[in-house]
């Protein structure tokens, strides 16, 4: 990366100011009280907004991003220059219509796109936090977002929506702040991280920590970057985002730019080149320690556990309307996990709809062009808007 403002405190992810969006900093009088029993203070929440807040302040839609996402949901990414990760969903005339709704998307706490995370300077030491950054949870991420909405003067959101870890935040929002959430769309998610999911995350974390450039998490001080480890973590994770059928359809056993095997450990197969590419591009936009922290937050997520083991208890008395969406070929957050949430909501007498979308694109389907998902979200938001008198 070119931006090496100071060789001592390497900040490779410093975003060009023009596209960086907005940020609100919370000072010593507004600490973020964390589940880990520590307080984070001061801290910053970086966010983007799209559309216009109406006079009644009733048309806000909060979008929660996934593990490696960020606040640039519907606009060009300042580091990669690529379109926003959910531009197919959010925009003028789209399912989450920015002509009607005021869309807010914030970088999660612990992240690396402007919200306070392990690569930021610890005011107590004057050095990057590194592993001194406190462990954060999905609930902490949601707390920070609630403080952001307070600061923006938004009491109630029309909808909280997100996929994967974004969906976890949606569920946490509905459980923690039911009176602030009119409707919720958790997509391709679950109320807990499964043993298999934790296992894959641990592989990723170990790859990062095994990279000699990780330097016990103090790589910024040493002017190094554990790119190899982070790339391997991304490669392993990326496999879990795709389905076996889609991998077979897209790549099969095709060879990359060659007719025969190399009889060496070069990437012979197209699927290998593809994964290498995914890993290499990822390290340009993501911080390795953030990856450790955010995967850990997902691993710790078990909403039922916070409510005595009964998931339904998390939603008792909830007036929020839910629309849960899963994908047939998602094996990271399979339909069964999504349905478990639906049944808990039903048992709690909450208003819940559940749709399973047929696709072979696996977990990643929520980020892709899935017309049935767009139709579901559009129909649901229309119905919710009309009950709230939003044009």
């Amino acid at each position, binding site marked *: 990366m070119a931006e090496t403002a100071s060789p001592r405190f390497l900040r490779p992810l410093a975003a060009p100011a023009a596209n960086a969006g907005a940020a609100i900093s919370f000072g010593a009088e507004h600490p973020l009280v964390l589940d880990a029993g520590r307080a984070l203070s001061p801290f910053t929440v970086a966010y983007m907004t799209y559309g216009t807040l109406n006079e009644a302040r009733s048309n806000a839609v909060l979008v929660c991003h996934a593990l490696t996402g960020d606040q640039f949901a519907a606009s060009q990414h300042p580091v990669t220059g690529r379109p926003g990760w959910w531009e197919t969903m959010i925009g003028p005339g789209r399912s989450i219509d920015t002509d009607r709704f005021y869309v807010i998307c914030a970088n999660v706490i612990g992240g690396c796109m402007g919200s306070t995370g392990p690569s930021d300077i610890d005011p107590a030491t004057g050095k990057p936090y590194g592993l001194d950054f406190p462990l954060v949870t999905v609930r902490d991420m949601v707390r920070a977002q609630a403080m952001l909405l307070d600061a923006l003067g938004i009491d109630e959101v029309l909808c909280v929506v997100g996929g994967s870890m974004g969906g976890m935040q949606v569920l946490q929002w509905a459980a923690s702040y039911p009176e602030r959430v009119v409707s919720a769309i958790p997509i391709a998610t679950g109320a807990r991280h499964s043993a298999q999911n934790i296992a894959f995350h641990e592989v990723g974390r170990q790859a990062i920590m095994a990279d000699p450039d990780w330097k016990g998490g103090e790589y910024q001080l040493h002017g190094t970057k554990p790119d190899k480890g982070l790339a391997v973590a991304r490669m392993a994770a990326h496999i879990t985002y795709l389905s076996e059928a889609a991998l077979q359809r897209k790549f099969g056993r095709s060879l990359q730019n060659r007719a025969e095997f190399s009889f060496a450990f070069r990437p012979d197969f197209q699927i290998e080149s593809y994964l290498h590419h995914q890993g290499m591009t990822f390290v340009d936009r993501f911080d390795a320690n953030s990856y450790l922290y955010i995967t850990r937050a997902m691993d710790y997520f078990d909403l039922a556990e916070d409510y005595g083991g009964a998931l339904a208890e998390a939603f008792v008395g909830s007036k929020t*309307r839910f*629309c849960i969406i899963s994908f047939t070929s998602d094996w990271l957050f399979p339909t069964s996990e999504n*349905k478990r949430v*639906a*049944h808990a909501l*039903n*048992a709690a*007498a909450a*208003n*819940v*709809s*559940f*749709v*399973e*979308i*047929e696709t072979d694109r696996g977990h990643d389907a929520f980020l892709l062009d899935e017309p*049935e998902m767009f*139709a*579901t979200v*559009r*129909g*649901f938001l*229309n*119905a*919710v808007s*009309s*009950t709230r008198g939003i044009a």
Partner: protein
Amino acid sequence: MSAPALRPDLAAIADMIPPRARVLDIGCGDGALLEHLTRTKAVDVRGIELSQQNVNACVARGLSVLQGDADADLADYPSQIFDVAILSQTIQATRSPSKVLGHLLRIGRHAIVSLPNFGHWRIRLALLLNGRMPRTRALDHPWHETPNIHLCTIADFVALARDSGAVIDKAFALGEAGRTRPMEPDAWGPNIFADGAIFLLRPR
């Protein structure tokens, strides 16, 4: 916005539902009945529907509907959480009608079941004369393609309901164009002349 008229058999079901009841409609289709109940009786409604397109139609109507099927998903519902559980023109398409009926009677304080009558004289005659599985307007599939894998007569269903420990509070015969008239569950006439029937049941 004036709503399209409800199909007569659905209207007959709607008539049996008290205002502000909690209702589960299993196989709710595009949600026409549920929307009608919401609007006219302030009923708190939930639906289960197999087809994704139908679920989307329901969601767009503002209804709470789960994509799923009666055989697999009813077991997950707590007992007695609905005032009325409706199974409309669906029981003949379930893998295990007796289990589904059992769940219906467990989940709801009342259950409403409507079904096509395979004992209709035209069906009897068609089988007698042609020796082939009969096809009617309502049941228009060849035997190897039909989703209706557990067809029965009115008398068959009455026997199953009683074996399942249900009390039949009301019964209606379905006639031409879905017209309904009250019937005695054990009368022989409807089992020959009715296109179908609607039953209001409750657990004993």
